[in-house]
Structure formats: structure tokens, C-alpha cells
């Protein structure tokens, strides 16, 4: 597991793990994505923001293999790849935590973590090694789950998010894609999930964070990529972007000459 390796320095000094270039995706008469590019480096959190209908979900589904792009290239660890489906994405090392978490409420934490990737001894499930590994994963995330033998239904929203994120790590991924991980959470639980995101980054994983919440994005991301109407609208380094600039890029107010100038000057200085 990557997680056992010593933490690499943060903020995207590593090489590009996943890069998409010139992605086009069209649904009937709707051009959902036009010439979109996105790069994630090891040990970097890239936030993907945009208004409703900006193409975030479509891009997430292209990366996680649910949709095939009509045109464009996807490179994983500098090799061109075709993401054939959700299973293919997992095999490559791209793990996705969907917004609805996709947990089985009737199963306990261990069963959910290893669903589809159960450890076995001969024909039987190896509960002991799965439970050990579950505790190890949760500990690397410093996650607060009192017991891994309780049904997921009895966990709080933040704990369920934790389980979902821990599950994405079972296949030893290089890139974790989080779709709106803080959408339904309270203040403290949001902070806990943001801590988890930072821990993923500190362990050298590339993280793509899709979010509506500007405060969360600015708190945890290294770079912010803004999509608008299916195109790359802007890209910021977090420490250089103000909330006003972000909002302008998201809503499209930045398409006026003054805002474009301001954005260009920001980039030149950066």
C-alpha cells in the first residue's frame, strides 16, 4: 500500500499522475464538455468547481470510466490509457467516492470496506485479516469509528463519508476522486472530512475534489480548476485566488474585458 510509505511533501511537487487533455463529450444536441483539460500531480489536491450544468459531473464520470469521451486523451502516469469502465478505472488506480456514498446499510463496516474485494482463505472469507486491514486503513486516516462490526446504518453522516473514503483506498489507488464529499455534513464533520483529504494528499495521492462550497475548496485545495458551460474557464493557485475572483469565474462575470485582464495579471505574477 502507498499509505505505508513515508509521507511525501505536500502541494503538488510530484509528477503528474493523471492528465486529461482536449476532452470532448456530447449528449445528443448538448455539447457537455468542450476541449477540457485537467492535470493532477501526486500529493496535490485539485478542486473542480463550477455552477450547476458546468460539466463537473460529466467530467467526473469520464474520469471514473462511467462515460467514454468522444475525443481527447487521458494519460495515467504518463501512459495514454482508455478507461473502459468503473472496474477499469479501479484497476488503473483511480478510486471514486460518489456523492451518494454507495454503502450497504445492512452490512457492517468491514463488509462495506471490502465489498467486491474480499480477502479469502480457501473458499471462506478471511474476516480476521479484513478486520485487521480495516483498522489499519482507518488509523492511517485517523478516522474515528468506534467499532467496525456495527452496521453502517448506525453511523453518522461524517462517519459514513469516512467509510466511503477508506473504501476507496482498499484497491491501493494513485488518484482519489471525491464528488461533493461535504455536501450533506455539519460543521465539525466537514472539518473531519477535510482533514481526511489532507491526509490523502500527505500520503502522496492525487486528489480531485468536486465541490460547491468555496470555503471548503479554499481551505484544502492546492489548485482550483473552474469549469463553465463545459469549458475550462479559469485555473487558480489557491493562495492567489480571492473568493470574488472564483465566483466571477464560476458565474461567468469574468468574461468581461476587465476581469480577463485581472485574471491574466494574476497568472503572470503567479
Amino acid at each position: 500500500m502507498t499509505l505505508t510509505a513515508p509521507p511525501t511533501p505536500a502541494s503538488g511537487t510530484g509528477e503528474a499522475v493523471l492528465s486529461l487533455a482536449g476532452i470532448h463529450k456530447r449528449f445528443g444536441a448538448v455539447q457537455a464538455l468542450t476541449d477540457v483539460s485537467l492535470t493532477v500531480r501526486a500529493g496535490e489536491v485539485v478542486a473542480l468547481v463550477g455552477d450547476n450544468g458546468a460539466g463537473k459531473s460529466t467530467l467526473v464520470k469520464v474520469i471514473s470510466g462511467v462515460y467514454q469521451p468522444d475525443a481527447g486523451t487521458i494519460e495515467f502516469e504518463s501512459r495514454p490509457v482508455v478507461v473502459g469502465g468503473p472496474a477499469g478505472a479501479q484497476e488503473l488506480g483511480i478510486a471514486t467516492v460518489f456523492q451518494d456514498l454507495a454503502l450497504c446499510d445492512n452490512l457492517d463496516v468491514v463488509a462495506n470496506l471490502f465489498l467486491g474485494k474480499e480477502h479469502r482463505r480457501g473458499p471462506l472469507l478471511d474476516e480476521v485479516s479484513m478486520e485487521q486491514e480495516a483498522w489499519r486503513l482507518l488509523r492511517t486516516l485517523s478516522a474515528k469509528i468506534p467499532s467496525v462490526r456495527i452496521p453502517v446504518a448506525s453511523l453518522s453522516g461524517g462517519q459514513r463519508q469516512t467509510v466511503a473514503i477508506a473504501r476507496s483506498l482498499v484497491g491501493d489507488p494513485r488518484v482519489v476522486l471525491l464528488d461533493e464529499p461535504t455536501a450533506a455534513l455539519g460543521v465539525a464533520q466537514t472539518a473531519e472530512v477535510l482533514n481526511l483529504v489532507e491526509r490523502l494528499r500527505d500520503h502522496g495521492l492525487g486528489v480531485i475534489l468536486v465541490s460547491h462550497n468555496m470555503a471548503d475548496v479554499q481551505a484544502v485545495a492546492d489548485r482550483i480548476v473552474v469549469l463553465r458551460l463545459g469549458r475550462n474557464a479559469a485555473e487558480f493557485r489557491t493562495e492567489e485566488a480571492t473568493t470574488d475572483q472564483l465566483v466571477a469565474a464560476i458565474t461567468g462575470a469574468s468574461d468581461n474585458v476587465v476581469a480577463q485582464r485581472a485574471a491574466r495579471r494574476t497568472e503572470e505574477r503567479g
Partner: protein
Amino acid sequence: MTATKESVAATDAADERLIRAVSPGDYLRQGWGRIRGGDLGMLPVVLGLVIICAVFYAYEPTFLSSRSLVSMLLYAAPTGIIALGIVVVLLLGEIDLSVGSVSGFCAAVMAVIVVDQGHSLWLGIAAALGVGALIGTAYAVLHVRVGVPSFVFSLAGLLAFEGALLWVLADGSINIPRESGLAQFARNKFLTDAQAYALVAVVVACYLGSRLWTIRRRRAAGLTPPNLLAVLIKAALLGGGLGWLTYYLGIARGWGYLTVLFAALVVVLDLLLRKTRWGRHLFAVGGNEEAARRAGVRVGWTYCSAFVLCSVLAALGGLLAAAQLTSVSQDSGTTDTNLTAIAAAVIGGTSLFGGRGSAYAALLGILVLQSIESGLNLMNVDSDVRYIVTGGVLLLAVTIDSVARRARSSSGRG
């Protein structure tokens, strides 16, 4: 002092919020908490069985005589085997209403091949089970590929296979000779005392051995092992209970082969459900199909295996019922086999909503229904009362399931 204690705590017992069970009193309190939270498990059906037995025993002491228990266990077995298949399908949140007709039709296929056409018994059994497997496959294709709800295609199957039974048995009924191997197996074969006690010893040894092995492995892995005393007590209760039952049944004819086959199927299915990847995936699909699909579970195959297993078990139950009655007639499996099997699975505590239940549900449920039937027969009550009582018990069981479900969701137990 506290610090050293904390540092040696097992990995899974380290969280301070976890309520640890150390003394026997703690275990009792935790059990009580589970029940109040709606996690009833087998408790209602066990209680129900005890009450039913007590009532009938008070009225007619021969109800619990050795002879009566032996025949009750024998007659419960064929429908119980069908109910096992229903449990598997219910775990997915689906239903198979056609198990009764399938059981009758498959038994008729066997009887025609063996009795009318004079082929060997094994060929007949294989053909009947094969027909069952084909029916299950057809159901799976309808469900997975076409998307027909299981309620609809199994209702169609209920009618179609009843028709097929009439068509196969154009000349009325077929008698299965009493001396044929199958009839002997279902009616006249019993374990000797020595065999029975040896079997009990093997069962207890397997249970104890596997639990001790678990204790060792979990301790080695730094996890809380099961409580050794509790394991020993359970093993003693298991051995004592089975040993006493063996002694008591031994006063009459003892354990019938058919009863032992049913019990073995229950144990095997229970292990398959709890300890294998297949069983885990069955629960997962029943709990949240979309989540299971995204996690890489082959949902289509899971449905297919469940429907095939259900139909094959229905065929097996039908064969054994026919062997027990030494005949296949035009109303084999048509009268109340269907609903008894489904009722048994539900009464035993399998949830109709999917994702919750166990193989033992079929065993306990069929014991409840069989004791009601035998008890009312002993009291010379007509079958009209029996149907009404069975209906009442079924309604009670589903009510308990629904109330427990509400209690579970309010106490966060899923």
C-alpha cells in the same frame, strides 16, 4: 495504571466510546439493548415455538411425545427444504411464488421417468433437479435481462407449471413403489443410536474447534477474541441439547435420514451465506443493489444463482414430498405447499424487504407451522381452522418484522 491498560487494549476495543462487555452481566445488558433496538433476530420465532408447544402440550400431552416429534420432523423436512430456497430469494428482496408448482412438476418429471419409463432412480432425480435448474435460469434471464418483476414471472410460473403438471400426469397420479430407494430414504431410514450420537459429537467438535481456532487467530492478530467461557457454555448447550434430543427421539424411531438431510442443508446454507463471498454479495445486493454494482459485485450472477438455487431446492423438496407420500398426483405441490414455504421463511424472521435473514429462519419457521398443523390434527380440528390460525401467525410474524424495522431505524440499526 490506566495508561498501561489502554496500551494493551486490542485494536478493535481501543475507542473510548465503545461500550465494552467484560462480565456476563455486560453481555446480558448488551443483548437486552439489541432487542430494545429492534434487532430481534430469532427471538420472536423461538418464543412463538415455545408458546405453541406449551399450549398444545397442555391440551394434549402426546403432542410432545417422541413418536409425534419424530413424525413432525419428518413431515416438516420437504417443505422446509423449499423454504430454504425462498430465504435465498427473499434476501435479495425478490419473491418466488411458483415454488409449489415447480416442486410438483419436477416430482412428476421424476415419477414419469422412473416409474412409467423404467429408467434408473438417479436419472430421474438428476432430470428433476435439472428441470428445476432450467426453470431458475429462465427466471433469472427474465429478471436480469428483460427486467420483469419477480412477483409477475413467478406468478406466471405458478400457473404454467401447475398446467405442466396436469399435462405430464395425463392419467391421474403415479404411485412410487414403497420399496424404491427414494421412498425408503424418505420414510423408513433412520440413524441408529450410535450413528446419531457420533454425529452429535462431530457437530459439537466442529463447532468448538472452529470457535477455538477463531479465538487463536483473532488473538494473534491483536483483535478481541470471543469470550472463551461463552464459547464453552454455548458448545455445552449445543451438545447437551442435541444429545438430549437424540435420546428423546431415540425412544421412538430416532433421526430420520430426511430430517438429517434437511438439517444438513440448513447448516450448509447458513455457512454459505455467512462465510463465503457469494453469501456476502447476496446480502449486499439485497441491501443496496446499486452500491453492490459499483463495488464490482456481479449483480446479474448473484440474481441468477439465487433463482437457480431456489428452484433446485423446490425440485428437491418436491421429490422428497412425493417419496414421503409414495405418490405424485395432480395436486402435488399445488394446495398449500407454496404459501407454507413462503410463510415459513417469513415467520422465521427473513425480512420481505431484502438484506436480512438467515438459513435458520426456514428451519424455525417450518417447525412453527408444522407444530400448528400437527397440534390441530391431534385436536381433530378441521383444516379450515388450521388455515385461519396459520394466516394469523403469518400476519403476526410480518407485523413483528415491520415493528422491529421501525425500531431499528429509530435506533440506527439499519
